């Protein structure tokens, strides 16, 4: 007969739905509603694992998440192997495949059990004491062997094919725990109209009430009362079974992990396996219940020894008898109920061993009346049996009681882990010997075990008037007193999961560990995934007795999240694969390009032709630029529009250089420093008009530079009337460089005379009716232009030029071309410790004061022996130096790694340290003498390439006192020998700048670009209850202005600019969105393209910044009943319509992308997404709405 220990009737399992499963390859049957633990027990399987350290046979201790022993691996196929799951939490499903862990070759015959013979070597803190000799064996022999034999299941190595989601949720009341108190709290809270979430780690809400068929509440049997309450709550409370509150983080943010599909035999692919809820709660009600404490006696870990309450749960909830003949060992009256119920179910109760001298209560009387012997004032001396207990010997040493089950209860410990994580204050309760939360907890979690009181307290904690319920069927019981310390014994286990015994605790205190935090770490009690759920208070009690102090004096260790293990998948959520980080694509799809990562961008590295190597392609591209004409997609450059009457003055304080003298239409190269005087970024500052500048930044520095400018503008230079607008995504940039650049471009830009543009100038004109900004600048040393055009037009321009035989070149060629001219790249030639003068840019410095200027006159920054930018030419022209290689002055075999002394050039002296200190006759000066005569690094190679133009290798380097060494020979030591190099000035091509000279350009007839290809909008997956769409282009203006100008602008463009934060105004076909106290986004139909002109006219003398950003972003629309829910999968804002009403708008984060989120209607959101982030945001929203689509994932 299968399931010999299943009782004929009762329990909450579905006996009409048998479920087959395997454990260690053996086939079993259980019922729907079983856990793996209950099904194994029904089949008389008690041996389920081997212990962590000693490989002792272990059985099922509990019926819940506190289980320390029954950890198993569940195998759902490749990549779906989950180790260390608690058998007590695994819901049975058809075909479940589970395996025991930490045993070889089998669970029953485990070679690792030899560890027990070695137990004296493995005592507390053994890794500090044993295995010390020979010393070299620790790393190679002992540690690997110990690690192999210790521990738990094996982590899978295949990629996890399942999906995981995150969800941000806000609520007024979060109730943790769905037992009696939690349900009552939910009733109380939902009556107030609050937003309530109730979560519970178990599959079924109801907690201990599910195991109380004989108790009635308001006349209902307790399990039926639970059912009725859930129906009542269903409409108004978010009920989350299978959801563990695992961590309490700052700002009342609680982490919940919902196991969505682990209980399903064949989950739908569109469902996530797990969902991580990040709940921002107004208030948290802790109804997490209590955990029964084991008793600490020798052999208390033998299979068949179980917590008493667990046996009652298995009986009433799962219809399983845990044995035939049980001994009850207790310090608490609750175990007597267990005895009575098991007796009624046909389990022989061989005796109750009560460590209390004279226990007496209604529950005890009931047991005595059954004729069950009660041994008062007695404890268990030991247990016997191998893989299952077969008898116990009482501590009096004479009585031996045969049994197959020992049920123990040391009383109940309130589950205060979450409260402890919240940094709440725990209060010691002397009567129960436990710690209780000082606030916010109800029910057993607060040390209240009377059901009627739990229910009444619960309704009050929910926020309603306290409500009483009529409770019947619970006998009057006395709670256990404080735990009693156990005698030190190396088979009396305190912490089952970490194999810590009472002896280990005694050893630790004997060795001088007094603080409980030290004892915890030395013995490992209460550590790791278990976090001391069953062991903490017993350990505390033992340590208190051993150190002769009160438990409250010992104090409690800090509980750490997570409460129970959380999968990496849940933490990673959707942020892996293509959503790991946004991949930003430039507006030009460069056919044939080899791409590389530059920050978050993908840029074209080079464009190999058929059969061409990368090196050959790069060389060809370089020569094309030098001899003909090439083009580079430079769209990723950061671009900032700086506008306002004080713009020049502001820029003069941010960049090196004085921009008051820069005429409109001219550009200047500029360097941006930190206040410490070191280079942070560089770029071109172009003056479009007296009060308007277009500033470029490096690709990687765009966000930083804008932040840096806003910092000084908002907090230091507050009097200036200047506004900043990012136009990085508005403008695409095509750099057209080379002798033929002017003639190639001229036909497409009829309204600008290219031959009249001096080097470093800017003009505004048109290509095909689109406004452009044309820069005559060069990062290659050749005559050239950077065409800034609306990003939507960039592809046409690129394709047209390509048809005119302009050679596309990538970042590799760009690097070589600029290095030949000695143009630096921030982050390559600079590393955050480099001043302008170090890299020969002292000429950029001007003006009265700018950020970082003062630091340039600090003594250390003026040293002449600082590392300076020079060129290096290897003596052998075929050699290309390694970037990062060190440069030395003379021959060495030590790779230039000699110690530095304060006299060494390049050594950063401590400011304020006097030279007398350096020359002092201390121990160091002896070392310095040793250095003399040996080579040391005086610099390093920053850039190195083979130049197709020069036909040889060349490099840029930072070398101490380098400018004074031009012409001399240095060495670059490499493993194969030192390479001789000659120091040169950092300029290798066109030293006079002749090639940059402007020549007249014929003005040919205007020619059109290629016709535009129809851009296909992304197409959403088949619609379900949430729809996603990309909207048609619109006109967008970024308006930054003071209040009077804002009013004038509003009147001129026909929509008033809202003054209330995060609100919008809609007027006919246009809208104004508040984005900041002086910032608005204007959205209008695409046809209103002259809106910026109208607005600029309207402001008159009021300073303001009005920038057309139409092409910088795209609008996505998400619609439907669950639209807010889907946005909340990636956005942390509270999107309840009361908190985020219709018309509300704000910048925020969606995943890792910044967007403007705007609620158009209750179920409609618009997201203004920067152009390059559209694919990422789109993919995020698709991921979120997948479970609401009709179609299955393929």
């Amino acid at each position, binding site marked *: 007969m299968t399931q010999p220990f299943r009782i004929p009737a009762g329990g909450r399992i579905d006996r009409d739905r048998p479920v087959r499963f395997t454990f260690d390859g053996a086939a079993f049957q259980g019922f729907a509603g079983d856990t793996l633990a209950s099904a194994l027990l029904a089949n008389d399987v008690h041996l389920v694992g081997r212990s962590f350290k000693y490989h002792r046979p272990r059985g099922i201790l509990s019926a819940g998440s506190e289980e320390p022993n029954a950890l198993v691996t569940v195998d759902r196929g490749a990549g779906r192997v989950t180790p260390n799951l608690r058998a007590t939490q695994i819901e049975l499903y058809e075909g479940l495949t589970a395996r025991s862990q930490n045993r070889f070759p089998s669970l029953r015959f485990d070679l690792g059990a030899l560890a027990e013979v070695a137990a004296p070597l493995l005592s507390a803190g053994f890794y500090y004491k044993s295995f010390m000799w020979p010393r070299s064996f620790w790393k190679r022999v002992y540690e690997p062997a110990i690690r192999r034999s210790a521990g738990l299941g094996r982590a899978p190595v295949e990629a996890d094919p399942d999906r995981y989601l995150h969800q*941000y949720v806000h609520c007024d009341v979060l109730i943790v725990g769905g037992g009696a108190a939690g349900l009552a709290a939910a009733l109380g809270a939902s009556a107030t109209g609050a937003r309530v979430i109730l979560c519970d780690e178990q599959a079924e809400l109801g907690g201990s009430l599910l195991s109380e068929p004989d108790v009635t509440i308001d006349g209902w049997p307790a399990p039926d009362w639970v059912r009725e309450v859930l129906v009542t709550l269903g409409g108004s409370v978010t009920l989350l079974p299978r959801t563990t509150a695992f961590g309490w*983080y*700052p*700002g*009342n*943010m609680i982490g919940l992990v919902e196991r969505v599909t682990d209980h399903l035999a064949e989950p739908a692919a569109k469902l996530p396996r797990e969902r991580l809820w*990040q709940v*921002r709660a107004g208030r948290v009600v802790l109804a997490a219940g209590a955990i029964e404490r084991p008793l600490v006696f020798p052999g208390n870990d033998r299979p068949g020894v179980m917590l008493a309450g667990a046996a009652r749960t298995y009986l009433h909830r799962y219809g399983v008898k845990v044995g035939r003949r049980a001994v009850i060992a207790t310090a608490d009256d609750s175990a007597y109920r267990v005895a009575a119920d098991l007796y009624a179910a046909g389990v022989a109760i061989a005796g109750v061993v009560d460590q209390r001298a004279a226990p007496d209560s209604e529950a005890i009387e009931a047991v005595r009346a059954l004729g069950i012997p009660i041994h008062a004032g007695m404890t268990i001396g030991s247990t016997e049996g191998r893989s299952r207990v077969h008898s116990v010997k009482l501590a009096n040493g004479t009585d031996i009681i045969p049994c197959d089950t020992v049920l123990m209860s040391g009383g109940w410990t309130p589950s205060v882990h979450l409260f402890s994580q919240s*940094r709440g204050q725990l209060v010691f309760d002397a009567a129960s010997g436990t710690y209780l939360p000082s606030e916010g907890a109800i029910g057993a979690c607060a040390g209240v075990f009377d059901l009627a009181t739990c229910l009444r307290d619960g309704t009050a904690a929910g926020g309603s008037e306290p409500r009483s319920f009529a409770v019947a069927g619970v006998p009057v019981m006395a709670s256990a007193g404080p735990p009693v310390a156990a005698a030190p014994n190396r088979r009396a286990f305190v912490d089952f999961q970490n194999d810590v015994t009472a002896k280990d605790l005694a050893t630790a205190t004997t060795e001088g560990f007094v603080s409980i935090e030290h004892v915890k770490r030395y013995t490992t009690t209460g550590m790791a995934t278990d976090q001391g759920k069953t062991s903490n208070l017993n350990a505390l009690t033992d340590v208190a007795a051993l150190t002769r102090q009160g438990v409250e004096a010992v104090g409690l260790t800090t509980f750490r999240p997570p409460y129970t293990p959380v999968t990496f998948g849940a933490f990673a959520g959707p942020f892996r694969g293509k959503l790991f980080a946004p991949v930003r694509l430039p507006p030009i799809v460069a056919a044939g390009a080899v791409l590389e990562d530059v920050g978050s961008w993908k840029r074209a590295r080079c464009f190999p032709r058929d059969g061409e190597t990368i090196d050959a392609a790069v060389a060809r591209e370089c020569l094309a630029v030098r001899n003909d004409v090439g083009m580079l997609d430079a769209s990723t450059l950061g671009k900032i529009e700086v506008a306002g009457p004080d713009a020049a003055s502001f820029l003069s304080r941010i960049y090196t250089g004085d921009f008051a003298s820069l005429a409109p239409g001219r550009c200047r190269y500029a360097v941006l420093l930190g*206040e*410490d005087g070191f280079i942070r970024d560089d770029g071109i500052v172009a003056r479009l008009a007296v009060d308007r500048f277009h500033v470029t930044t490096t690709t990687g520095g765009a966000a930083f530079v804008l*932040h840096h400018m*806003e*910092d000084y503008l*908002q*907090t*230091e230079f*507050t009097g200036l009337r200047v506004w900043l607008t990012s136009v990085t995504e508005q403008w695409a940039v095509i750099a057209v460089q080379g002798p033929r650049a002017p003639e190639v471009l001229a036909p497409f830009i009829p309204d600008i005379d290219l031959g009249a543009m001096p080097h470093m100038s800017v003009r505004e004109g048109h290509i095909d009716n689109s406004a452009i900004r044309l820069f005559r600048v060069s990062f290659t040393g050749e005559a050239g232009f950077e065409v800034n055009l609306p990003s939507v037009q960039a592809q046409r321009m690129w394709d047209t030029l390509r048809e005119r035989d302009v050679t596309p070149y990538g970042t590799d060629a760009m690097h070589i071309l600029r290095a030949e001219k000695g143009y630096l790249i921030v982050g390559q030639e600079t590393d955050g410790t480099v001043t302008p003068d170090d890299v020969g840019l002292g000429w950029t410095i001007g003006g009265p*004061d700018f950020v970082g*200027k*003062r*630091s340039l006159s*600090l*003594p250390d920054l003026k040293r002449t022996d600082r590392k300076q930018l020079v060129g290096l030419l290897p003596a052998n022209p075929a050699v290309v130096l390694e970037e990062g290689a060190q440069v030395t002055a003379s021959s060495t075999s030590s790779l230039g790694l000699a110690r530095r002394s304060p006299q060494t050039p390049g050594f950063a002296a401590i*400011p*304020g340290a006097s030279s007398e200190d350096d020359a002092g006759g201390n121990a160091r000066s002896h070392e310095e003498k040793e250095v003399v005569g040996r080579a040391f690094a005086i610099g390093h190679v920053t850039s190195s390439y083979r130049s197709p133009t020069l036909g040889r290798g060349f490099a840029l380097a930072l070398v101490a006192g380098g400018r004074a060494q031009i012409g001399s020979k240095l060495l670059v030591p490499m493993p194969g020998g030192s390479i001789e190099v000659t120091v040169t000035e950092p300029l290798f091509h066109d030293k006079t700048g002749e090639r940059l000279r402007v020549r007249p350009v014929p003005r040919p007839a205007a020619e059109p670009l290629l016709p535009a290809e129809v851009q296909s909008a992304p197409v959403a997956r088949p619609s379900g209850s949430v729809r996603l769409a990309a909207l048609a282009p619109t006109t967008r203006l970024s308006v930054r202005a003071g209040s009077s100008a804002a009013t004038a602008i509003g009147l001129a463009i026909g929509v008033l600019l809202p003054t209330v*934060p*995060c609100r919008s105004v809609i007027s006919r076909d246009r809208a104004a969105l508040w*984005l*900041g*106290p002086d*910032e608005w986004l204007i959205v209008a139909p695409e046809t209103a393209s002259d809106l910026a002109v109208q607005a600029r006219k309207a402001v008159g003398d009021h300073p303001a910044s009005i920038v057309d950003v139409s092409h910088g972003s795209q609008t996505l629309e998400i619609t439907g009943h669950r639209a807010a829910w889907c946005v909340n999968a990636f956005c*942390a*804002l509270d999107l309840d319509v009361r908190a985020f009403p219709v018309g509300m708008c*704000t*910048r*925020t*984060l969606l995943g890792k992308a*910044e967007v403007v989120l705007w609620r158009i209607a209750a179920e409609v959101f618009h997201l203004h997404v920067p152009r390059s982030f559209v694919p990422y945001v789109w993919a995020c929203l698709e991921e979120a709405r997948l479970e609401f689509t009709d179609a299955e994932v393929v």
Partner: protein
Amino acid sequence: MLLIPCPWCGPRPESEFRYGGQAHVVRPPDPSAVDDAAWGAYLYLRDNPKGRHAERWRHLHGCGRFFNCVRDTVSDRIVASYKPGEAPPS
């Protein structure tokens, strides 16, 4: 995750903000008039209190404004937030 009260937008999740260091450190109006030691102190010396600390935050992914917070470094609770130019609450 902290919930940070932006003086303009109200309480927002920490992920929208960027930390800006100690508040009320004023850049010398004329740096050239400051000696090296004082300039070094302005660059590098900051308080590290146990308890209340006035610090700058920017609502970077929101309204973009810098403002000041008083945060208790022991409890990690934000006691107050206020606009630039306003005095810290006593």
